[in-house]
């Protein structure tokens, strides 16, 4: 196994599928000659040529729409949003066309729309958004938010092989910060299965994406400071959602904190809490707490950004509260 960054692992997953399947191609802005704004596709143009690594005009609707058309015609496109924020410009194509096609026509649209999301890197309101839950609510679209390099690769391979539209939320703050061992070659991580990244008995933290790393840091802090045993459950995919995987941990600890970097109201955390309340009410020993961003755009100045986004300290505080209830 090689040690790869989160970014390298994603590239490795795409490259693996492009080598294995001629139907897979990439399309996006500055992904070919330039190798992508984050250099994720560095070397792709040389290896696969301009028919499989397509530099498109700044037209997200055309990029996504053309990907849908190509998917209807037997291809498996991977469309890059240079920043996931810009998916708003291709939103209609994803939710109106791609997300309704299986239901209306019974015809597969095997397409991945991927790109960097998330804050904490001093960008601005237009380069920091966590918009994954928009697509959860749109129906007909699978939503993937990996937290670790091995999952990023394995989930990317599953995304490309899936016969449905998949939005793949990479967290730009993890791109070079998180490294890990990644199996070489074929490595498939199926959708709809949680990963218990840390076993514990006192409190469950249910999370995904960057929030998993906040939870792990908080769990370490609380283990050292107060010998609290915290279980961290990474749900990995929002659609499909592994409800049973979450409930298993809830039944074990009876105390739950749900964390995501996206803003609180209308976020996926509300859905997780609703399922827990419905299916595991009698196992709960405390109210379920949520930790998420303040309901605002993600601000630019470091002081403001740090204040509105969740972090390990805020997660730790919520865990302490739930543990003490």
């Amino acid at each position: 196994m090689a040690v790869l960054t989160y970014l390298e692992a994603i590239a490795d997953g795409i490259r693996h599928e492009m080598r294995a399947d001629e139907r897979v191609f990439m399309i996006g802005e500055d992904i070919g000659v330039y190798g992508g704004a984050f250099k994720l596709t560095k070397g792709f143009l040389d290896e696969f040529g301009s028919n499989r690594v397509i530099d498109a005009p700044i037209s997200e609707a055309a990029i996504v729409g053309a990907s849908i058309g190509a998917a209807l015609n037997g291809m498996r496109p991977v469309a890059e949003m240079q920043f996931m924020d810009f998916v708003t410009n291709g939103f209609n194509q994803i939710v109106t066309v791609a997300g309704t096609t299986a239901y209306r026509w019974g015809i597969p649209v095997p397409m991945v729309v991927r790109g960097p999301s998330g804050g904490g890197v001093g960008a601005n309101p237009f380069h920091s958004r966590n918009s994954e839950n928009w697509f959860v609510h749109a129906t007909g679209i699978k939503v993937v938010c990996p937290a670790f390099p091995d999952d990023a690769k394995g989930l990317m391979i599953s995304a490309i092989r899936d016969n449905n539209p998949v939005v793949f939320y990479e967290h730009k703050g993890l791109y070079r910060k998180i490294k890990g061992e990644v199996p070489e070659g074929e490595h498939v991580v199926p959708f709809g299965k949680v990963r218990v990244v840390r076993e514990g008995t006192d409190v469950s933290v249910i999370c995904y994406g960057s929030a998993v790393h906040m939870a792990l840091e908080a769990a370490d802090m609380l283990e050292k400071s107060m010998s609290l045993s915290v279980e961290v459950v990474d749900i990995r995919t929002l659609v499909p959602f592994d409800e049973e995987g979450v409930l298993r941990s809830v039944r074990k600890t009876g105390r739950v904190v749900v964390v995501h970097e996206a803003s609180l109201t209308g976020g996926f955390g509300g859905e997780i809490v609703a399922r827990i309340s419905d299916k595991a009410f009698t196992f709960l020993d405390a109210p379920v707490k949520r930790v998420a961003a303040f309901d605002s755009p993600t601000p630019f100045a470091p002081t403001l950004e740090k204040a509105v986004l969740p972090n390990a300290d805020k997660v730790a505080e919520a865990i302490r509260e739930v543990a003490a209830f």
Partner: protein
Amino acid sequence: MKLTNDDRRVLLKYMLMAREFDNAMLRLYRQGKAFGGVYSQLGNEATSVGSAYALDTKRDVLFPMHRNIGSHFVFGQDVDTLMINHLAREGSQMRGTDGTGHYADPEKRIYGNVSHLGAMIPVAAGFSMADQLRGITTVSMTYIGDGGSQVGEVHEALNFAAVRKLPLILIVENNQYAYSTPNSSEFACEKLSDRALGYGMAGVTIDGTDVELVAQTCSEAVERALRGDGPTIVECVTMRMRGHAEHDDFAYVPKELLEEWKLKDPVENYIKKIVAKKIMSASDIQALRDKTLSDMIASIDRTLEIPYPAAEEGFKNVFIEG
């Protein structure tokens, strides 16, 4: 494309099918048996039929809009399938999840529209792009109106198609009104095909009531696409002779304007031409027309006997399994 008299008889047949499909649907609407919108294409027959006729139905692909019933017939769609789809009965290619002409029939190379105007134009471009990447030329023909032309996705798709020299043909059916909004409130350029210059593609504006002119012009666009010279906008100027849909009394259209366009009726004028050229007799045409309408009504009657799909269909196929 050199049209023979056989071609002309076929063009007339499809025009009559489009017209009588409308008449049959209007009858159904008035009987209160149609639900959802009934979008008449009265006045648009020549654009739908003439444009699709320029394509190779085995090689090319059609992305029609809601008023392009004639193009479905050119691509070999049968009346019963169309009716079952329109009226959302059991056996619909959409299982009751959607209606009207929104279906897809990959075998017949027809991919219907969504209600968001212009949304399928980038999709049509991508369909052709997939084949272009594999070294095959598949012409995609799709449609938009004088109103839908103002949607941002149309602009993105046309620019994209021009940059990649995709074999895409966009028929702009300028039928004067976007629901209630006239051309003057929709765009400021003289002709919608003027935009082609800005995209770096070919564009032409023609009389959209002349089926042969539409077929000839589109045939030139097909040749251009096959040569690798990229997309074409063909603006077909015509008139929507009914409301946006049948619930709309279109009181906003001046009566004189309708009278003026009535003289340019694409079906009646083509009948006159066919009779004058002695390709078919007036009585033969009337007989064909009567039979076409009675076939449509019979198809509707058969369709109305079919139940709606079972309710559990609503819970299936949100995703493709496996």
